[in-house]
């Protein structure tokens, strides 16, 4: 078989080399069979060209991309299939797509060369008497290193290349004695646990430990699970903060090789200890006790000696470091205790102590005594609200933490160079026979073809790399608009004139888009108390308007919450809240106001079941569903899960949305099935039949919950849906694809040291072998590096190839009506997030079911 040579970089090319063998292996019968099936299926459509092309593909050899898409070559004018690199005969399913323009991207991964071929023995180490500090434990083991040979010890588990023979009559294979700093004898008992082979998944634990050891050789400090560089710290003097750059690394088994993922992270360290805060309080106020209490209550603090964080619950002004407390060895004062255990000297003996109550986990574990912490040793962490609101501080931080792609790549290369040049780290890696590649993994990626955005009067816009079509609204009308004939505007009496001007502007903006907005009924309120607003809304709703616009004088969470509660729960009506700052800005040119008016009109149209724009959808009967969860800000145990479903988007722009409340840890399956049943009912009422295919996007699932979600939620949902479809007469059940969307990932990729263009998809080499997943960059960013989104398909019987799933997901990111550009996750997921956020923050209860067919929450 003549296959074209592999172009581009050979490194990390995924399955490039092996594929030739597989391609030849006995697939001819399969090939013939599936082709035939295909021809029969499409025989009805009578497209002679189609049948002929397929036959040609079967006979000729492999230069053509043999996928479903190809035979209709003449129709697919806009699909550019440039280099034909590999051929996959039909019948062999793969998670790689084929369409789009091919490029090479660099990722933030390094390859681990030389797959280790050792066998390591695992031991458990116990210390008598118990030594708490990990560093001390490791120091003790270090003394015996000649006996152990090459070893890795993380404080409890010991991995060693030597195997110690078991000793008679003893569970321990080795017993050592060493002297502590205070002169007492410490016994070290080592027990054999097992062995780790090249095939074990546990070797990743060992590999990561080895990497940690190597990174320690670079003088990096471990702060809560990642390594940071205190020497390269950036001081923000005036804000009393330091930013420490660092790396987040992990070694995992990816599609074909073991890869190391390195991501640049930054840690914000406040230079204040609680002692500084106390001194300030004493200096500034007479009543320093209440001032100090107010400042530190609820704060999270970090103690440097054991790298643990605590939450401050109370301040005890009666105790001092000289007070005594009870331990197993009798009463000891805090000063002596810290000196003995951590070798820290406390300087101020009169400072009060800070109390931290144990969490529920600690209580169940047996410690239910509050912990007393010395302010001198406690460092403040986190950012106060005042700091977050200070935009100068955020801007300064942003300059250092938001890295442009070329700087990021440079930092990663520097990290690699350091690892390879530092003496200690190279020693560690060499003794374990591990070598890291010195260049970033480069992989082939594809840029999906640009999507067409459809506006009114059949006007089309082809998306470009900026992925933004706001300016199109100046000259086109919306795809489907709803004329607003009857509506109310509620405004404070004092600002009636500005409101009227703004409404005029909106009417003008709408008329350029050929949408009619009639003059509203103005309702002036005397003051802007919550009660007055509520009453005004009640009065307005009695007149049965299509939409109510409420003008607030300034941004106020409580007022917004009250207004939304009224309009979403008690008297369901779509509402648009605007603030005076936005609609009547001072010293602004009116051109800026026009664009604001346009955006408001687009949003109001979307809330009234209109569609500002549409996208080209080649599937019939598709229902897209998005689900997200948001935690309530007021009650920590409650969360709200929102589900948003589209109807068949080829024919209708209606939606279905619902929110359910659940307690922390409660299973979501039954809520989801119930909501899906209602969504299906709505679809059937609207279109007359059940959807042909369902595409379900689930957000809000972390890696740890993945197994649970797969096994309970999906199984339950699928069972319920199959039941419904079978009882409606469709014997093959429901055709559904369940995709988990994650935004919080560490993988990044770059095209030519710049941000990848929207539509860049990666589905090989850096994906995980046990998953059917791909990465997609759908948004365009102006600052910093773009972060791709990970789509993990865990259940799929839609009958579409991976290629089509990727294109569908990309299409879905264009449909978010609150932003005239692409968003990071599919639109239904973003809608679900917005709805859940609205309910969790402002409404705090289930919205009225009367609004479930509209996007009232935008």
């Amino acid at each position: 078989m003549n296959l074209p040579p592999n172009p581009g970089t050979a490194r990390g090319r995924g399955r490039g080399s092996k594929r030739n063998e597989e391609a030849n292996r006995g697939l001819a019968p399969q090939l013939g069979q599936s082709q035939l099936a295909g021809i029969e299926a499409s025989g009805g459509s009578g497209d002679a060209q189609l049948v002929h092309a397929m036959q040609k593909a079967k006979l000729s050899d492999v230069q053509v991309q043999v996928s479903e898409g190809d035979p209709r070559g003449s129709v697919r004018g806009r699909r550019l299939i440039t280099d034909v690199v590999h051929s996959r005969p039909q019948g062999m399913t793969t998670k790689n797509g084929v369409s789009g323009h091919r490029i090479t991207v660099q990722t933030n991964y390094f390859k681990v060369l030389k797959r280790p071929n050792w066998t390591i023995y695992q031991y458990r180490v116990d210390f008598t008497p118990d030594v708490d500090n990990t560093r001390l434990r490791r120091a003790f083991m270090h003394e015996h290193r000649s006996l152990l040979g090459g070893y890795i010890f993380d404080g409890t588990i010991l991995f060693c290349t030597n195997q110690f023979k078991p000793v008679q009559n003893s569970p321990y294979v080795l017993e050592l004695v060493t002297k502590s700093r205070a002169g007492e004898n410490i016994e070290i008992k080592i027990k054999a646990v097992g062995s780790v082979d090249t095939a074990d998944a546990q070797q990743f634990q060992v590999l990561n430990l080895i990497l940690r050891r190597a990174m320690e050789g670079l003088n990096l400090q471990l702060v809560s699970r990642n390594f940071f560089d205190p020497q390269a710290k950036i001081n923000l003097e005036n804000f009393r903060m330091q930013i420490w750059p660092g790396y987040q690394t992990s070694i995992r088994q990816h599609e074909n090789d073991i890869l190391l993922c390195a991501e640049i992270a930054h840690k914000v360290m406040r230079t204040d200890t609680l002692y500084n805060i106390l001194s300030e309080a004493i200096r500034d106020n007479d009543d320093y006790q209440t001032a100090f209490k107010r400042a530190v209550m609820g704060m999270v603090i970090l103690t440097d000696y054991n790298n643990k964080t605590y939450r401050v619950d109370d301040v005890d002004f009666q105790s001092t470091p000289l007070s005594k407390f009870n331990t197993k060895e009798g009463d000891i004062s805090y000063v002596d205790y810290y000196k003995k255990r951590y070798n820290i000297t406390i300087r101020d003996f009169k400072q009060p102590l800070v109390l931290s109550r144990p969490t529920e986990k600690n209580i169940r574990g047996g410690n239910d005594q509050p912990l007393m912490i010395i302010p001198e040793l406690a460092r403040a962490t986190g950012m106060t609200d005042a700091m977050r609101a200070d935009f100068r501080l955020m801007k300064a931080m942003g300059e250092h933490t938001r890295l442009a792609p070329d700087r990021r790549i440079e930092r990663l290369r520097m990290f690699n160079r350091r690892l390879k040049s530092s003496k200690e780290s190279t020693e560690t890696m060499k003794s374990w026979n591990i070598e890291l590649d010195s260049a970033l993994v480069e992989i082939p990626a594809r840029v999906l073809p640009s999507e067409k955005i459809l506006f009114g009067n059949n006007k089309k816009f082809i998306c470009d790399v900026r992925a933004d079509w706001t300016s199109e609204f100046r000259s086109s009308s919306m795809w489907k608009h709803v004329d607003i004939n009857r509506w109310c505007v509620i405004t404070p009496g004092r600002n009636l004139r500005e409101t009227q001007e703004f409404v005029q502007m909106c009417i003008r903006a709408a008329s350029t888009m050929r949408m009619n907005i009639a003059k509203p009924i103005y309702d002036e309120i005397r003051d802007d108390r919550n009660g007055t607003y509520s009453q005004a809304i009640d009065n307005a709703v009695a007149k049965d308007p299509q939409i109510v616009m409420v003008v607030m004088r300034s941004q106020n969470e409580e007022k917004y919450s009250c207004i939304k509660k009224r309009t979403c729960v008690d008297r369901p009506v779509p509402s648009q809240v605007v603030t005076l700052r936005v609609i009547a800005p001072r010293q602004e040119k009116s051109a800026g106001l026009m664009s604001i008016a346009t955006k408001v009109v687009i949003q109001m149209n979307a809330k009234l079941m209109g569609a500002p724009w549409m996208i080209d959808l080649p599937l019939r009967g598709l229902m897209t569903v998005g689900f997200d969860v948001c935690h309530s800000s007021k009650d920590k145990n409650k969360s709200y899960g929102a589900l948003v479903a589209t109807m068949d988007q080829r024919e209708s722009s209606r939606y279905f949305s619902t929110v359910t409340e659940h307690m922390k840890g409660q299973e979501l399956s039954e809520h989801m099935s119930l909501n899906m049943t209602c969504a299906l009912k709505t679809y059937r009422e609207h279109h007359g039949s059940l959807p042909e295919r369902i595409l379900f996007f689930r957000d809000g699932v972390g890696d740890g919950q993945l197994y649970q979600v797969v096994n309970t939620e999906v199984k339950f949902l699928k069972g319920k849906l199959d039941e419904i479809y079978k009882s409606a007469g469709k014997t093959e059940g429901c055709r559904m694809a369940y995709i988990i969307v994650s935004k919080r990932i560490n993988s990044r990729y770059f095209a030519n040291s710049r941000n990848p263009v929207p539509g860049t998809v990666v589905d090989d080499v850096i994906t995980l072998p046990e998953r059917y997943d791909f990465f997609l960059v759908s948004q365009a960013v102006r600052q910093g590096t773009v972060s791709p989104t990970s789509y993990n398909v865990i259940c799929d019987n839609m009958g579409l190839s991976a290629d089509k799933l990727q294109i569908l997901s990309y299409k879905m990111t264009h449909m978010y009506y609150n932003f005239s550009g692409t968003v990071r996750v599919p639109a239904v997921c973003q809608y679900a997030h917005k709805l859940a956020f609205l309910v969790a923050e402002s409404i705090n209860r289930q919205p009225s079911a009367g609004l479930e067919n509209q996007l009232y929450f935008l």
Partner: protein
Amino acid sequence: MSALPNVEEYVICPYDSAHRILPVRLTYHLTRCAKNFPSAKLVRCPYNSTHLHSVANMQNHIIECPNRSAAERFNLPDVLPPVEPRAREFLIESAEDWDAEPPVQTYNPAAHCEKELIIRNLQGAPPAARRAFRESERRRFREKNQF
């Protein structure tokens, strides 16, 4: 802080009365405990999957299940007065028609993992099954590496 240390809000596992579990972790526990009791024919309540009863008792339980109100609410929703005549619905014509193409089988990652030397672990299985899996993987790697 909500609960005092002495108040134990444990729930008793329906499969084995000796198990006491925190309500937060009940669903996870049920997933794992069910595998140990394949003969206990307990059915899940349709309103709350942590309610498990035998088939006979399920009828009684459904009548008095506290989570039933959530489902009933969907059957009798609050309705808005009929909305005004909507703008005409549309039909988007598309250049392609994916419905006419033959259905494709979905990708099964396990096939790739079997063929190549991919290191993996068996999640969610009891310890004995995991041990057996590790052994079989070791053998497979050793054989593959002989080439």
